[in-house]
């Protein structure tokens, strides 16, 4: 018997539409898991462990896996898939995986799992897309904002983030303001062979701050307890975002630290929904101009297991989220590079953002993952400028 693998059937059937979602959550089940796979039909789960473990421990791990499966799959409601645009079959000139060449060219440098530096090519590509996103923001006369990278824990608590996405949180702290603690840290702090900073937890101050997981939250808190102007608010900002994805952190497709550009709408329901739709139509023209292969389809956020079934079904039922999924020819798959989101009056009610008539404001945002869209572009068009859309060839000059 191989004591470093586990193979078993799920406690309840995993519907095909949930196989990917459940598999991604298995990364958070136990630190001894090296990788987890669910067969495409959802009838078999395979777990590779980092090292062999005793039989009793294997049972404990399996039990935890089954908890995830039952929580997410039992009574799951099949989502209503709606495709708004489908250009996945557009012909694009490149079929390779850009990662090896990006590494070989020194265009990316991996600092840690999910943390990369980007070189001139990727930076210029991102700048090109940023200009298009800023054009989009300008078309709505969006006001520019700059938001901090840190966000108070109290803010995320107030909008239920801890329940919905506990697995992806990134915490920020500092040493306690105590000379003895600071001296002891300065004297002895070092990283061990596993890159762990070897410092007792009590040396750190209580956590009051996190690394921000999204850009638009900062605007909503800026508008909290305020009466909105009759014309609503349109804002745009770019910012660092942090979502820890454990074993799922993978190349530029899934970063821990990434950058998002958002155009944010706050106002009446019709105002938000109309602008979200207008934004989609305007971006459709941009993607058409460069021959980008993608699809816009309904989606849900990656809620954690306890919340997943209800929250995902709600998002699907009310068509709150659409993702821009770019084709990745090298893996015959797609990657979400942006999204069109509507939150109903969730933030308006929780943060007391009021419309002139006293009712709660509605919110929505259009968000683009800058590293992902540049990566997807390279995956479709490669590194030969002659193969690139004419309007983008200047990037390489």
């Amino acid at each position, binding site marked *: 018997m191989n004591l470093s693998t586990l193979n078993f059937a799920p406690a309840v059937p995993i519907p095909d539409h949930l196989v990917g979602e459940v598999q991604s959550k298995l990364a958070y089940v136990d630190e001894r898991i090296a990788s987890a796979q669910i067969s495409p039909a959802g009838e078999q789960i395979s777990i590779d462990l980092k090292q062999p473990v005793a039989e009793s421990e294997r049972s404990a791990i399996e039990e935890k896996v089954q908890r995830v499966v039952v929580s997410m799959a039992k*009574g799951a*409601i099949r989502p*209503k898939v709606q495709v708004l645009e489908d250009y996945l079959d557009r012909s694009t000139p490149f079929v390779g995986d850009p990662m090896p060449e990006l590494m070989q060219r020194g265009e990316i440098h991996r600092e840690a799992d999910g943390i990369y530096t980007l070189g001139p090519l990727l930076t210029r590509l991102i700048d090109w897309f940023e200009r298009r996103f800023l054009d989009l923001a300008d078309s709505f006369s969006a006001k520019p904002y700059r938001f901090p990278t840190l966000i108070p824990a109290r803010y995320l608590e107030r909008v*239920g983030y801890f329940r919905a996405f506990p697995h992806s949180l990134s915490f920020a702290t500092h040493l306690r303001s105590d000379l003895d603690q600071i001296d002891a840290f300065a004297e002895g702090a070092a990283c061990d062979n596993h890159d762990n900073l070897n410092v007792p937890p009590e040396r750190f101050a209580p956590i009051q701050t996190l690394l921000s997981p999204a850009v638009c939250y900062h605007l909503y808190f800026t508008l909290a307890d305020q009466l909105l102007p009759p014309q609503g608010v349109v804002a745009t900002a770019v910012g660092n975002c942090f979502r820890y994805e454990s074993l799922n952190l993978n190349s530029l497709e899934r970063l821990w630290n990434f950058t998002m550009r958002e155009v944010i709408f706050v106002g009446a329901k019709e105002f938000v929904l109309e602008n979200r739709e207008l934004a989609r139509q305007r971006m459709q023209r941009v993607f058409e101009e460069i021959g980008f292969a993608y699809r816009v389809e309904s989606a849900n956020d990656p809620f954690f297991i306890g919340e997943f079934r209800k929250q995902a*079904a709600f998002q*699907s*039922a009310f*068509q709150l989220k659409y993702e821009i999924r770019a084709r990745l020819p090298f893996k015959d798959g797609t990657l979400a590079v942006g999204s069109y989101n509507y939150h109903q009056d969730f933030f308006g009610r929780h943060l007391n953002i009021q419309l002139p008539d006293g009712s709660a404001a509605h919110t929505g945002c259009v968000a683009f993952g800058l590293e992902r869209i540049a990566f997807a572009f390279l995956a479709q068009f490669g590194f030969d400028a002659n193969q690139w859309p004419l309007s983008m060839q200047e990037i390489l000059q």
Partner: protein
Amino acid sequence: MSENVSLNPLTRRIREALSLALQVPIEMISEDLAFGDLPQWDSMGHMEVMMRLEEFFGVEINADTIATLTNFTAIRQYLEDNHLGVNS
């Protein structure tokens, strides 16, 4: 005589389901109640309502229907249209 006794059985059962789902006293479940009227009937509360309706009436509610059952009247109409009474 309590208020509940005077209601028809379906209405009473819906009130019970919503009361349990939203974790509020049954007196707060009026027949003109709608999504958003109570802080408890938010997105999470709505899905609790859907699951309680499934449990109470033995119905499987699909994604299309979830978006339409946003008030008491619509819920009652849906259950009546689908012949889902108190004995289901």
